């Protein structure tokens, strides 16, 4: 569906993208992550044929972006970082204008406008002037213009930027409704959002791909899950009990207070190993207060990559 081959982009002496290559199959939701200035927006602009690449090729649905920009734009719905809205137009007239420019047949324009108004929950503000809308509504109008021509690929640049939690939830629900039909690329700074919406992430660092993998693999590959066991007893007995549990590798023992310790172990996700540990604690008369596993997060993986 999307194929990027050795794309580079220079702005004067600054190299914004360095030899980037990746492929995104049809129907996948991919998150673009990276610090400010990592090249996310430049990459999105190249994919939408807004900016030409200095070298390399990008293909959307088999069409070369630089050779057939108009064909590519027909297949793409794009929401830039700041929703591109005309503040003096009403929501309906703006979407009508977007439909006209995006080659929606004259016969279908009205129906298509009604459809996206409904899909983006904008029916109650359809006759309102855009300048008077809240940020959340404006964002949804931006998404509505991006999908009005039923594109096969949707590219959203920080769709939840600056929204309050309720508005974020609305936009997230809307995006998750889109994903069943189309290939979606989302860039955002809110990593928990990507974890919930995307299956795969592409982390950019200084114009290069620092990681390109499924989210699960990135998290697990970065940091194995850890088991935290809070126990009450003598420290020497605790150490013995842990040592005898050969199946679990001890990382650290931390004293939390009088006779209260927290044991960090490498998690194996194997119930028999946990049983063995608990039995050993029981053998040395150590009370288990709490047992919890800590999952590695995308945020930790992201911060580690961007160190």
């Amino acid at each position, binding site marked *: 569906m999307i194929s990027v081959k050795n794309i580079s982009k220079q702005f004067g002496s600054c190299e914004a993208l360095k030899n980037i290559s990746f492929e995104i199959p049809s129907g996948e939701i991919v998150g673009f992550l990276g610090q400010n200035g990592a090249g996310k927006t430049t990459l999105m*602009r190249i994919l*939408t*044929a*807004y*900016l030409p690449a200095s070298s390399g090729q990008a293909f959307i649905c088999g069409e070369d972006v630089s050779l057939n920009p*108009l*064909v590519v*734009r*027909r297949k*793409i719905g*794009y929401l*830039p970082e*700041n929703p*591109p*809205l*005309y*503040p*003096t*137009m009403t929501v309906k*007239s703006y979407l009508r*204008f*977007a439909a*006209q*420019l*995006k*080659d929606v047949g004259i016969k279908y324009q009205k129906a298509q406008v009604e459809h996206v108004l409904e899909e983006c929950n904008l029916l109650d503000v359809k006759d309102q002037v855009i300048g008077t809308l809240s940020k959340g509504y404006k964002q949804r109008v931006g998404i509505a*213009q991006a999908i009005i021509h039923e594109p096969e690929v949707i590219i959203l640049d920080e769709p939840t930027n600056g929204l309050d939690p309720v508005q974020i939830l609305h936009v997230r629900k809307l995006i998750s409704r889109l994903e069943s039909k189309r290939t979606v690329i989302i860039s955002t700074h809110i990593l928990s959002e990507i974890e919930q919406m995307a299956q795969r992430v592409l982390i950019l660092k200084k114009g290069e791909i620092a990681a390109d993998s499924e989210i699960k693999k990135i998290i697990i590959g970065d940091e194995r899950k850890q088991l935290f066991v809070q126990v009450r007893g003598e420290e020497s007995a605790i150490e013995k009990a842990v040592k005898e549990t050969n199946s679990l590798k001890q990382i650290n023992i931390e004293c939390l207070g009088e006779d209260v310790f927290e044991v960090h172990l490498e998690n194996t996700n194997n119930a028999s190993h946990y049983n063995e540990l608990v039995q050993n604690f029981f053998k040395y008369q150590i009370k288990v207060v709490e047992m919890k596993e800590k999952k590695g997060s995308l945020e930790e993986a992201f911060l580690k990559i961007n160190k």
Partner: protein
Amino acid sequence: MKKVLFIAQKELCSYFRSPIAYVVLIATITIFNIFFFTIIDYNQESTLRDVFKVMEFLFVFMVPILTMKVFSEEKQMGTMEFLMTTPTKNIEIVLGKYFGAVVFFSFIMLLTLPYYFIIEFFSRPDRMAILTGYIGIWLEGAFFISIGIMVSSWTKSQIVAAILSYLFLFFLYFSSLLDKYTSGLVQVIVTYLNVMTHSENFIVGILSSSDMIYFFSGILFCLMITRISIDTKIWDNV
């Protein structure tokens, strides 16, 4: 071509949604009316010759106010990115915006038509001279608009766009004053570029191909530069 119409229609509507357009419209027509009655009363002639001259002088001040926002505002609001990521050719965007402004300008011109009917009612004016006069000042306005739009495509700032447009239009309008200080080829060029050299003929009833070529080539040149400016985005952050 359909998209040119869609963009022109949107552009025209945006003029009527903005208070600036109404201010320009009312101020221009009021000033035109005052000058029309003063000139007719003073000259006691059934001709619009001097009225046309006042009109073209006022265009120098009016057009930059109309055109300063055409591209600058789009760049400022980020909607240029919207237009340029739709399957629309850059030339269609340029032409749509140009025609939108020209139609608004033509609307102002239409409001001056009663001047003709008034002098027609009271006397027998030279109809051909009035017709060519209207063609001349319309072409002049259309040329000025193309300059304003070209300048607007160079900057995000509407104020900068307006000031630069004033510079260009002042040069074209008042360059005859430089005649004394120039000679040879420079003088020929300055005289040729002077817009009044060409509009004068239309106003007195002469339709000449060289004047037509001046206006049409000027419009074409400015629209071409606008398209190049949009294509290359070299002035995007100015």
